[in-house]
Every structure is written in C-alpha cells, then in structure tokens.
C-alpha cells in the first residue's frame, strides 16, 4: 500500500515536470529515486507523529503540488532561472509528500482496526436487538393466552356457542415452597410476584378490641329470630316480638309455609346408606299400583277371554305366562315347549313392523 501511494504523487510530479528540460528531468528523477530509501526509513520514523501534524503536512504538500503544476504550465517555460528555483523549492514538497505517504500508512492501518471493532459492535447490537425482539415476542405470546376470557365462558357452556374442549387444568403442586414471595433481610419489605411492598406493624391492642366490642353491644341490640311470619300474620302469644322475622308474601325464594315433617327431614339428613326415603316411598307406591293393576287383570281374566288379554300385554308377556302357568294349571301342556313357542311368537312379533 505504501509503495502504491508514494508512486502516485511521483507520477504526478513527473507529469508536471514533463515540459522541463532533461537536466531538470534527471534531477527530478534523481530526487524521485533518492526518495525511495528515505521513504522506507521515514516509514518507521514518522509513524509516531501526531495526526494533526500529519494533516497539516499533507495539506501543505498538496497545495504545493497543485501550485507547482499550475506554475509549471505558466512560468517555467519562459524563465529557466525561476524554474531552477522552483525545482529547488519543489524538493521541499517532495519531502513533505514523503511524510504524507508515511502518515497515510498508519491511518490506513488504523482504519483497518476501526473496521474490525465496528463490526464487533454492530454484531453485538444486532444480537441485542434479536434478543430483545424475541423477549418481546414471548411476552406478547404469554399475554395472548386468554385464560378466563369470554372464550373460556364459551368453553364452559355459559355462553351460547360451540362447546369446545375444556382447557387442561393447571396443578399448583407445592403450596409450601413459593419462590415468588421474598422478605427482605431487614424485614421491612416483602417482594411478591415481582413487586416490592413496604410492611407496617399492626397496631390493634386487646383494649381497643374490647372497646369496639362494647361499642357494638351498645349500638346493636339483636336477638336471633326464632319465628318467621308472613306480613299480616298475628304473633303467637308465647313468642317474643323481637325474635319475629317478618317475611313479605311475595318473597322470591322464601316461604313461611312449613309443610315439612321435621322429624322425617332430620332422619333423611342423618341417613347414611340405603335408598332415600322419597325414592323408596315412590317405589313402594308404584309397586302397589302395579300389584293392584295385576289383581284387576286377574279378575278381568275371569270374565274376558284370556287369549285376547295376552295380545294387550306385550311388555308383561313372559311375566303373564308365568302367571298363567301358576294360575291356570287346568290348561293341558303336552310338553315343555310353551316358553319356546312363546319366545318364537314374540320374536315374530318383533319382526313385524
């Protein structure tokens, strides 16, 4: 790099001095040649100069070069003496040119260094940008989880929409070890869920508490109501009027009508096993009804033709056949094929539309 950079001013210098005499040419060339070893020397010598100095030198040299070129066009042709002087003067800019060349090399070298550090900084910034953007993306993604939203209501069937699958329930396993709660060493603050709160002691004393209790006992005289009456009812004679609760007649979910048998209700509550009372009672009632129906049928069988009764009793066919077996012993049965024939008939009946 250094050699290339030095050759450029030299060429320019040569082109400037193209119109000069051979003598001058030689001199110039000689000086040009003479520079070279010096350049190498100066490469190391001037590399330590400060930048300001180098800049000034460079500017100066370029100015000289330019002026020399213009001067050479205009003045040197006519006046050789002046040219000689100029050439002598030119030697100085060349020296400075040499310095310039020297100064350029470390700058270029430095630029190389700068480029490498810039790349590193840029890379870091790019990585930071990528990290921040990923983090933002993750945060937004976590926010977009709509647990407890209207969507969930839809899922649970509270809103009219397509019922979709209920989300997987979360299990919070360890209630005893919660890393989200931290108390500071001085116990003056507590950190919960990333927020720091200041703590203050509770100042309620026993005396204050008893004072409040006394105040309330004075302010609120109250007896628990023992009887509930509809508005307009008369108070029974042995009842304290303070313990009566008056219920409006149009109360939406309360009624004063007490048609429940209390003992029965209590036994229902205390029942540990078996069929509940009401179910049992209903079952028994149905059973009785059925029995009475069947008894009526038995009676009717005496009057009505039993064959026609059979046709009306499809669901109870097997049952009635047993009944007939038990009841009508007089009917002859050649073999035990009654059940089988009945089963075939029932099958045939099922086959019919």
């Amino acid at each position, binding site marked *: 790099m250094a050699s290339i950079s030095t050759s450029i001013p030299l060429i320019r210098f040569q082109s400037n001095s193209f119109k000069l005499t051979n003598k001058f040419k030689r001199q110039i060339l000689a000086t040009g040649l003479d520079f070279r070893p010096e350049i190498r020397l100066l490469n190391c010598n001037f590399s330590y100069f400060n930048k300001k100095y180098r800049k000034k030198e460079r500017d100066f040299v370029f100015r000289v070069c330019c002026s020399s070129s213009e001067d050479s066009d205009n003045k040197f042709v006519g006046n050789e003496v002046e040219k000689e002087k100029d050439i002598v003067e030119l030697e100085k800019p060349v020296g400075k040119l040499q310095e310039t060349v020297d100064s350029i090399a470390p700058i270029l070298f430095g630029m190389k260094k700068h480029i490498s550090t810039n790349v590193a900084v840029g890379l870091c910034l790019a990585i930071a940008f990528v990290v921040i953007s990923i983090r933002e993306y993750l945060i937004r993604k976590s926010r977009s989880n709509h647990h407890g939203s209207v969507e969930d209501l839809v899922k649970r069937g509270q809103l009219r929409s397509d019922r979709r699958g209920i989300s997987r329930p979360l299990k919070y396993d360890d209630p005893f070890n919660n890393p989200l709660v931290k108390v500071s060493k001085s116990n003056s603050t507590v950190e919960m869920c990333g927020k*720091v709160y200041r703590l*203050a002691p509770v100042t309620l004393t026993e005396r204050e508490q008893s004072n409040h209790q006394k105040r309330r006992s004075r302010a609120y005289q109250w007896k*628990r109501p023992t009887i509930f009456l509809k508005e307009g009812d008369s108070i029974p004679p042995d009842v304290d009027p303070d313990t009566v609760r008056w219920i409006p007649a149009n109360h939406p979910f309360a009624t004063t009508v007490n048609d429940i048998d209390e003992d029965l209700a209590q036994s229902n509550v205390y029942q540990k096993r078996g069929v509940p009372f009401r179910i049992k009672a209903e079952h028994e009632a149905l059973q009785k009804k059925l029995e009475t129906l069947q008894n009526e049928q038995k009676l009717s069988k005496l009057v009505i033709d039993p064959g026609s009764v059979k046709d009306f009793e499809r669901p109870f066919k097997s049952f009635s056949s047993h009944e007939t077996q038990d009841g009508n012993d007089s009917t002859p049965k050649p073999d035990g094929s009654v059940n089988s024939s009945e089963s075939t008939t029932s099958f045939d009946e099922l086959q019919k539309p």
Partner: protein
Amino acid sequence: MISLQLHTINPNSSSLKTSSFPISTSSHYFNSKSLKPHFKSTPYNTSTIVSVLQWNRKPQLAGETPRVVVITSGKGGVGKTTTTANVGLSLARLGFSVVAIDADVGLRNLDLLLGLENRVNYTAVEVLNGDCRLDQALVRDKRWSNFELLCISKPRSKLPLGFGGKALIWLVDALKSRQEGSPDFIIIDCPAGIDAGFITAITPANEAVLVTTPDITSLRDADRVTGLLECDGIKDIKMIVNRVRTDLIRGEDMMSVLDVQEMLGLALLGVIPEDSEVIRSTNRGYPLVLNKPPTLAGLAFEQAAWRLVEQDSMKAVMIEEEPKKRGFFSFFGG
C-alpha cells in the same frame, strides 16, 4: 407458602390474644396508645419488625374439628364467594378436608366459581325431602378430592325460612358423624344482607370471617354485621380486607388496611390486593389459588387460609408499593 409472623423486640409490649385458642401463636402486638396508625406521622419504624417465614411445613390445625366458619360481609359484592372458594381450596391444598356450603338460597354462585356448576344435581333441600342421601348431594372436586361442595337449594326452589337454621345444624351434625370421618373445616358462604339467609348461615357457625373492602359503605355494613354476630354469640371474628389498592392508599384516596382495622377493631386474617386475575378466574371457574404462576391475590388468599388453620392473625400489613431496584441487565430481562 409463607405466613408472616412478626415479633417486637420490646418484650414489654402488650400482647393481644386473638382468641382463647389452644395454640398460642408467638405473636406480640405493638403497644400503641393512640388509634391512629403510626406510619402517617412518623416514618416506618421498621427496625422493630422481625418476621419469620414458614417454609416447607404444614400448618398446625388449631381448635376442635370440624371448624364451622361462616364467611359473611353484610354488603354484597365485596368478595364473600370468592373468598370462600379460594380459602376453601387453599385449605384443601394444605391437606385438610373441607366441605363448603353455599347458603345463598336464591342466588347461589359458589358452584360457578369452583367450576362445579354442571355437577350439582342434588342440594340440601333434596336431602331434607328424602330424594337423595347427604353423601349424594356432596359434590367432590376432582382437582382436590378432599374438597366438597354442598348447595342449599336450587335457584328456583323455595326453602321454609324457619327451617334453614335447623337444617344446617342437622347437616353439620351429619357431616361430623359420617363414615369417612368428620371434615376439618365446614365453610359456609353467607348471602348478602342480614335477612333470613344470613340468619340461616350463621346458625351452625362457631367462628366468622368478615369480608370487607376499604370503603365506608362496606365498613358500615361490616360493623353492623359484626355486632349481630357478637349478639348471636360468635366471638371469634376476623376480617379479610379485600380489593386493596396500594396506589390509591398512597395517594390517600383509599383507606389503608390499618385505618379499616382502626374503625372495626377486628383482628386481620388477610389483606387481598385488587387483582385483575380475579375476574378471569371467576370466568374460568378455576379459583385463583390454583393459578400457575400464582397471582398476588392468590398468594394473599393462601396466607389467609394458613392463618385460619392456625387461628393466627396478621402482625404486619403491606402498605405501599416500593419501586423495585432494578439491575444493570434489567433491560434485557435480568
């Protein structure tokens, strides 16, 4: 799960026994003559606070089982049902068997919050009528099998009013004597107001949790309800202050928890911060305490449940949010 226990350095400070409980918590309260909280006039004297974290241990159950706790408020919409669902499931997660009774006859919602609305076929009214047995009316939660729900009635059925209290007492007795053993906790979700539903709900209860919000309407109702409970013989009353916003307290737009305590004079069971997750968990039918990662309100409910088990009360409250010291790499998520 943690529970804060705070001790004063000064041994002569007056101690407050929150109740006549068999387990005495090593709690000492701060001696203060004035009702005004100290932190307003003086800077927080934090050097006197020493807290002990309870890590990796099961809370010790205090009192006789079953503990029958009624969760009430007076005013509606303060978070009774949310508290019942979350405290109930927290207790179940802590390993105790819990039966939650929704005593709101006309407007039951606990089944919705727990996501069990499709599984309620029988209620206590059917049990009383003899349509089913009590064990058939109990809806067991599939997530935590030691949690069961019992609804008093179906929304449109009418319950004789003079009968509800007695019925609940029978139900509690039947639960005590059931084959698989008595439950550790029976939590009753009380309806709003002080009508017949309230009277029914408090009848079998031995202790009460009063849920309130830091506003004057809720506080007036809470004070009245506390008075009624005390008249009825329930002396063990603790309060949960719900929907607390530290930013509003800082700007003095909302009463602080200590102000609320000063007005009601009740021991604090928990302070639940306002949390947007509550509405989402309600919609999902999945209580907050089961959320992963846990939410701020869910953690507060867990701590309240812990204190309920040990019959403990809060010794320090969170008053305001401090700006968190952020590290050098916080920009990158560090």
